[in-house]
């Protein structure tokens, strides 16, 4: 007997408003239908009315967890348009903060995955250790989130010797903790039972549905912008791209923890090789007419900004493509034939950053307009029962 469960816009598993409508048969999901739009803030229209400098602060607030990646991606593209080359030290500090943000984002994700699976102790421990990296970021940039350390032509804050030593010491502590979480994530029986074999995505599906980031790497596709399209800093670092080929949530846990360990290596190399010199260069107010495509490896996948300027001090067009958006079609494939209990876990597995993805929405073809027992997922109206079309008990089609 089929009926539709709305995982409404406001749901404890999803920290952000997204609405999923699952066509379910008993406990097995037959089909999924995602409707976003709740988070659409009309950012691209707004960007066309702000100057280049103001846009840095706008692109930074696209998403809380990967704020630095959007800002860096934007600043990279604009520097190409303005033909401004930031000094080496500025670049090194910029990508140091980028790697620190990747560490804090992956630790956050590990905790949320544990919380979705009901493993709250794992959530508490990972988030307690995340505070270490938050303190480092606050020391470097002054704020726990939204670091605003980027500016056109370089970076706004410098690093002194004391800070460098503290970062190295913090990374050493975090490396020990991450290995401990790696063992737990891959061995704790009740946790592994929940994540092994769940949300399976084959390499072919991942390839055809253009999945990005850890979701694709967990299905065996080694695609990492830091390797394919490296900017100044990454081709001087040696690190390898962590992949797994099981294609399920366990594979994503493994890939993310591998990336954590890689990031620690990169941070240490950046700190050791930090060159001397200025950290920023003056940038002109107007950008030369032209267009630029800038790509950046955000913690969740590949971030892409397409910037087109007509020579004035405001961008003519700013197109932002966040990684979560690319993973939505893949999510629909993963949800098929899963269990209801797995919805939040599969959904958390792609580490959705819904506020990033909110310029575009995906709705893969569910049988069109099968408005069966439940109208468009308005979770609370049904729960309240006060709304005009509350469902009288009699005709709730229920097999028992």
């Amino acid at each position, binding site marked *: 007997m089929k009926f539709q469960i709305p995982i409404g816009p406001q749901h404890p598993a999803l920290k952000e408003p997204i609405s999923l409508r699952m066509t379910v048969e008993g406990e097995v999901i037959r089909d999924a239908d995602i409707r976003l*739009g709740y988070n659409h803030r009309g950012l691209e229209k707004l960007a066309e009315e702000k100057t280049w400098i103001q846009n840095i602060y706008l692109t930074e607030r696209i998403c809380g967890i990967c704020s630095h990646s959007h800002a860096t991606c934007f600043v990279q593209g604009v520097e190409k348009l303005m033909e401004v080359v930031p000094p080496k030290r500025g670049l090194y500090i910029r990508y140091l903060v980028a790697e620190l943000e990747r560490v804090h984002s992956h630790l956050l994700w590990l905790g949320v995955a544990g919380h979705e699976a009901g493993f709250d102790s794992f959530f508490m421990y990972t988030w307690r250790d995340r505070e270490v990296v938050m303190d480092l970021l606050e020391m470097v940039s002054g704020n726990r989130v939204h670091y605003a350390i980027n500016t056109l032509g370089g970076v706004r804050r410098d690093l002194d010797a004391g800070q460098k030593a503290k970062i190295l010491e913090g990374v050493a502590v975090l490396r020990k903790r991450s290995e401990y979480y790696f063992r737990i994530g891959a061995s704790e029986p009740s946790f592994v039972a929940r994540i092994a074999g769940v949300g399976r995505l084959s390499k072919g599906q991942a390839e055809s549905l253009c999945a990005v980031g850890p979701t694709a790497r967990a299905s065996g596709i080694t695609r990492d912008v830091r390797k394919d399209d490296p900017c100044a800093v990454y081709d001087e670092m040696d690190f390898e791209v962590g992949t797994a080929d099981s294609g399920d949530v366990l594979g994503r846990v493994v890939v993310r923890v591998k990336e954590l360990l890689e990031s620690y290596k990169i941070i240490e190399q950046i700190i050791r090789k930090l060159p001397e010199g200025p950290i920023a260069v003056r940038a002109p107010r107007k950008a030369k007419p032209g267009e630029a495509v800038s790509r950046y490896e955000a913690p969740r996948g590949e971030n892409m900004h397409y910037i087109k300027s007509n020579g004035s001090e405001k961008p003519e067009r700013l197109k932002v493509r966040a990684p979560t958006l690319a993973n939505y079609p893949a999510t629909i494939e993963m949800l098929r034939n899963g269990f209801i209990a797995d919805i939040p876990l599969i959904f958390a597995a792609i580490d959705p950053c819904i506020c990033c993805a909110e310029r575009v929405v995906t709705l893969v073809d569910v049988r069109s307009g099968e408005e069966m027992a439940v109208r468009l997922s308005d979770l609370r109206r049904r729960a309240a029962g006060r709304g005009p079309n509350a469902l009288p008990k009699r005709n709730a089609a229920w097999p028992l």
Partner: protein
Amino acid sequence: MSDSDIIQGLEKDLGGKALELANPDRRRVFLKVAPADLLAVVTLLRDRYDCAYLATISGVDKGETLEVVYHFASRAANINVRTEVAKASPHVGTICPVIPGAILYERELQDMFGLVIDGLPDPRPLVTPDDWPAGSFPLRKDWKYERPEERIPGGKS
């Protein structure tokens, strides 16, 4: 496969179809194509130049024409295919049969630019809220909007 090989390869394969071919930066190739043979170019890119991965589709409002840019990314370089469509009859063919993952971005074009994508499997609106007035496309330059008037709580407005 460096940028120059890609450019020579494209010129050889596409011949007349490639209206414009530019390489403004390392690992960036821009290619302008007429809307009619868009699908053929996309299949060629996917099969011969390992561009199965479509990053996104950007729409640009250039006054009287709408420009659509398809950003493909392969291991070697980022190839962007550009087509232009008159604003009067904004019709573009879908590339979903070739790249299933493109359904997202084509949906956005429909919402934001009023571009009609022919043959799209699922044309329902997505990004705009349910009560969005039909026919108004936010990202067009000529679209103006009135800000919802500010209500200061406590009646001191």
